[in-house]
């Protein structure tokens, strides 16, 4: 899966990929203060023996320990737990679910907007592909809205970027691809070689997306993310 980190202070964006095996679960957001955490499980393409297999998120789990609430979203269904009681929906629903501390809007075959507590919202987008395509299958996208409402203790592959981040880019030079220049970036006391590129934001147009120019950090975000990407591998979606 690819990650895009918008940095409003710099009016720019950072991006990186995490390449892991299908089935691996990554901790994306964890806020011990609000009790909210989000993890994502990776899926691969339909055919397994493909060189440079692309990976995506196929399953996301949202937990709010304070409200004893869990939400599991797959490309097939959406399951909501309050304690042991569960409610199931499919992507064929257009439904607004409201309960104490949670608002969940499912927009049929498009997206889900989850609002927890006083304001933090997550948008999960269903990327549907033609079911007869030989390689690809449906996958999910996760976007965070109003991330400033999360506490300063928030961490995770995405969550660590909810706090202001500073970086500097210099020595912009031609890269191996003429349309994508390389540069040197100073971030978190690391000197990294980055590449100018584009990634897609699918919030408004889930089919085509809109292109976001960003500085791409190679090697699973090494140097940009705290520690190694394997530090974010967890055993279970919840």
């Amino acid at each position, binding site marked *: 899966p690819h990650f895009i980190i918008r940095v409003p202070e710099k009016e720019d964006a950072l991006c990186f990929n995490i390449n892991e095996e299908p089935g691996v679960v990554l901790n994306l957001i964890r806020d011990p203060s609000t009790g909210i955490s989000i993890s994502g499980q990776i899926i691969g393409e339909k055919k397994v023996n493909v060189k440079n297999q692309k990976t995506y998120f196929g399953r996301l789990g949202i937990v709010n320990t304070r409200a004893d609430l869990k939400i599991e979203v797959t490309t097939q269904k959406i399951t*909501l737990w*309050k304690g042991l*009681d*569960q*409610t*199931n*929906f*499919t992507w*064929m*629903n*257009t*439904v*607004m*679910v*409201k*309960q104490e501390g*949670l608002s969940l809007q499912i927009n*049929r075959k498009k997206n889900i907007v989850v609002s927890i507590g006083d304001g933090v919202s997550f948008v999960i987008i269903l990327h549907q592909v033609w079911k007869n395509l030989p390689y690809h299958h449906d996958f999910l996208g996760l976007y965070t809205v109003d991330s400033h409402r999360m506490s300063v203790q928030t961490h995770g592959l995405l969550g660590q970027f909810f706090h202001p981040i500073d970086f500097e880019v210099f020595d912009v030079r031609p890269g191996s691809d003429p349309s994508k220049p390389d540069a040197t970036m100073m971030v978190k006391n690391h000197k990294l070689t980055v590449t100018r590129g584009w990634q897609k934001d699918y919030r408004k147009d889930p089919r085509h997306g809109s292109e976001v120019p960003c500085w791409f950090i190679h090697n699973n975000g090494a140097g940009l993310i705290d520690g190694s990407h394997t530090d974010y591998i967890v055993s279970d979606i919840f």
Partner: protein
Amino acid sequence: LPDTVLNGIEVYSTKISCKVTSRFAHNVVVTRAVNRADTAKEISFDVELPKTAFITSFTMTIDGVTYPGNIKEKEVAKKQYDKAVSQGKTAGLVKASGRKLEKFTVSVNVAAGSKVTFELIYEELLKRHLGKYEMFLKIQPKQLINHFEIEADIFEPQGISSLDAEATFMTNDLLGVLTKSFSGKKGHVSFKPTLDQQRSCSNCTTSLLNGDFTITYDVNRESPANVQIVNGYFVHFFAPKDLPVVPKNVVFVIDVSGSMYGRKLVQTKEALLKILEDMKEEDYLNFILFSSDVTVWKDTLIKATPENLKEAKDFVKNIQDQGMTNINDGLMRGIKMLNEAREANVIPKRSTSLIIMLTDGEANVGESRVEKIQENVRNAIEGKFPLYNLGFGYNLNYDFLEKMALENHGLARRIYEDSDADLQMQGFYDEVANPLLVDVEVQYPENAIADITQNNYQHFYDGSEIVVAGRLVDQDLNSFTADVKGQGALNDLTFTEEVDVKETEKALKEQKYIFGDFIERLWAYLTIQQLLEKRKNVQGEEKENLTAQALELSLKYHFVTPLTSMVVTKPEDNIEQEAVADKPLEGKPEPITSSYATQYHHQPPAKPYYYVDGD
């Protein structure tokens, strides 16, 4: 004479064709016969159809001359009927038959060598019940038939998820001529036994085909709702799945008067014990027993914990019959208990309450004026929860029970005195045991839709379906949104259905299975049914208005409803006779042929009574 000739009459064929489109069933029963005798003979045609169905047409063709049935306002038909009665020339054509059916019978004298064709058409909206739609056909030919055939074509735009057909008379041999198949939106059932396969034994001339033929199916439910539009009328089906069950607070108000003595009480206890086994721990319950007095199991509602359920079972096992029938005090105690539990927050905030009352007799002690009991109950419940009335047997005022249930958002159900009465009670409980949503309201844009059928329901039960139909005001409307709001066990839910009018209409019109104006007829059927039900709760001008509306629709759409009659003119010895097909009413069963004591003091009858009724 061949085996197909009985008493000089040969039946060429009987064909039952059912076309179901979006749960709306259009059934045509055609029988062709000939008088092979050398004298005039009476040929009769019997069809048993569901009580929920409306006859829409009947014709009788004798030697090429067709005698159609005319559907008229009941009063108009009655005048004609009375005139004919005075001349001794009439017969009622329809009467109640058992629990689910009513029987249409017509007979006609046919000259030697003459042929007759009978054709009866009836329609009904199949109701979803415990997760299935059921179409019920009673098969009982009086003799062997050259060509006997049942053909059912089902078209469901949501796609069919399961389809089955079975008959109580099925043998291995007959299984070979029963075909059932479904794929995508279409389902098909066919049953065509040969003449030999119809024989009750290898050389017999009597028919093996005698019993119930039932077709059951369900549709795909990827989406909780489905809206269909044809010719400016729409129908909206709503049945979400996989929602948690809303906890319920149930008060069972049980008649234990002397008339419940014997098998009735044994069956009631068996049903209650089974129901207790199915109770969920988050539910609350209590038992209120009424006879001349009222006794309660506990003073307040009790949580259905395993320990409490064990105690409840012991209580049920020890229920004894005694005394008379004090319906009013029994109900009032139950209502008070539910109201107090809600006020004192004893029961969960997100839970729903209901009363299930079972009685086998009429109120005869305490407040016995039915109007006053109704008023008391209505004022005490104030629309806060539904009342379900189970009427055990026939020796009771069913109209009163039904009216009281309807005005308190519930329904009445008759429990037939039979070996399976306990199963009937359990079956009813199963229907209302799993509420998934409460206070359900279906909303449409005001200026886009008109003449909608009932759009708010106190409960949506698992395995059932909410159906709302209406008319599009603007024929050029491109799209509209339907919202269904309800409270679930954990949360408030609003389901939204975006309807693309043109696309939906186009998709349905392309299907060959559809019989033209079925959504309009479905709407008319549902509207009439609901108007008739509402009519039971009101008086005076309001009742007149509802009656007028229901009558107008019954006549416009040619439905034999409780407000209309079908007059059939039969040629008899060159004199035309008239017969009338009326819809029998549930509250007024066939006359009971034995008397029954309803009042006695602490002296139950020495032996149980047995009686037969008109069924």
